[in-house]
């Protein structure tokens, strides 16, 4: 047992740096994919066929692509176009691009839970598409979106570990680092599992809070 805690205390800076980077990656990609995914979701339910087609193509292209490939594309292929982005921003972009496809589908299915009569009544009052979506449909869709959205974000939190393979020192990079120091892998990996469990607790609490807050009587 002493050995178990020693691994953490002897290497606390490595663990701390790793998880702080994981949290940074997560927060940036969460905000990014929430914005981009909602925009894509709005496109998919818009009355303009070109926008709907763009949204559908994006989702089908990205959702069917392995995340590692999206990372590889940004880290290795994009610099060939003479665009130089650092590893960390590249990882943020890769996660955002990938997660947005899933967020888009969550938004779209949330919108589909709202009775069509709601949007129709809003249109009949003379509201624009943007007003119908932001004033009437999305507020009522939020509640249905919370559980699947949290699943997407929890998956995304764990997907951040792929960034380790692309020179970003986040939690997923800790095992390799510790192997060099000769620390027991079993213990290192156990601490990383515990770290992720701790990170996920606030997300679960947030989900419960939002579901209560956005309860809508139908």
């Amino acid at each position, binding site marked *: 047992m002493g050995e178990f805690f020693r691994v953490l205390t002897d290497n606390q800076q490595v663990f701390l740096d790793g998880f702080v980077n994981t949290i940074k990656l997560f927060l940036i990609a969460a905000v990014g994919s929430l914005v981009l995914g909602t925009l894509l979701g709005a496109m998919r339910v818009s009355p303009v066929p070109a926008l709907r087609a763009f949204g559908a193509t994006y989702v089908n292209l990205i959702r069917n692509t392995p995340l590692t490939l999206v990372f590889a594309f940004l880290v290795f292929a994009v610099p060939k176009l003479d665009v130089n982005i650092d590893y960390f921003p590249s990882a943020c972009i890769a996660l955002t691009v990938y997660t947005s496809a899933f967020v888009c589908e969550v938004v779209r299915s949330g919108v589909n839970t709202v009775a069509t*009569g709601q949007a129709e*009544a809003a249109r009949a*009052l*003379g509201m*624009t598409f943007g007003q119908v979506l932001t004033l*009437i449909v999305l507020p*009522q869709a939020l509640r249905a979106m919370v559980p699947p959205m949290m699943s997407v974000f929890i998956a995304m939190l764990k997907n951040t570990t792929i960034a380790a393979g692309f020179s970003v020192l986040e939690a997923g990079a800790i095992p390799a680092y510790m192997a060099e120091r000769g620390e027991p892998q079993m213990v290192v990996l156990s601490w990383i599992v515990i770290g992720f469990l701790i990170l996920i607790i606030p997300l679960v609490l947030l989900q419960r809070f939002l579901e209560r807050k956005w309860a809508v009587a*139908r």
Partner: protein
Amino acid sequence: MDDVTTGEPLIVLDGVNKWFGPLHVLDDVSLSVGRGEVVVVIGPSGSGKSTLCRTINRLEPIDSGSITFDGRPLPAEGKGLAKLRSEVGMVFQSFNLFAHKTILENVTLGPVKVRKEKPAAVRERGLALLDRVGIANQADKYPAQLSGGQQQRAAIARALAMQPKAMLFDEPTSALDPEMVGEVLDVMTSLAREGMTMVVVTHEMGFARHAANRVVFMADGRIVEDAAPTEFFANPRSERAKDFLSKILTH
């Protein structure tokens, strides 16, 4: 009832056709509604009467023909269409009150967000309208807390808050329990008396008799008869209308 039509008609449909796939739901429909006129549209289910009502504010686009409102053809989309819709009130069979807004918010949302009117003034007008339809004491409740009849009266107040030039009613009492039909029809009758231009799709023959200037009978996507209510109910000319009336008036 006398002909109240003055000047040019407010709503004109000319040779309107619409298909739902292979179904010819509106078949060469022409109809004009004068200012202040109350036109009741009746007919069997599937005759196209609801679709007809919904084409007037372009909730249903049409395939051919033309529709003009207040002398202008209906805009196809965008700001123009939104503006037209803001001038035409619509009341739905299933009320469609915004479930996440209070009754008063339902009524004030349109004027504030679409017309950009001052919230304080709109609030006053909204409360007056709720008082007029008899539900002022429900202003701060949510739609789900009201009875069907109260919800539909709130929906009428919501449409009136936009100060529309005409009102469309798409089977406004069909989803109501029988004892609540009267309270909604009373509101509609008083609107008709005040000279609101109305197109009403309904199965309420009593309302058609005493509140309508004209009755339009539809079957299979066509307007089969278009007559004053007394004339229509006493002497329907077509077999379809005779058959329809015999089925609904015998009970």
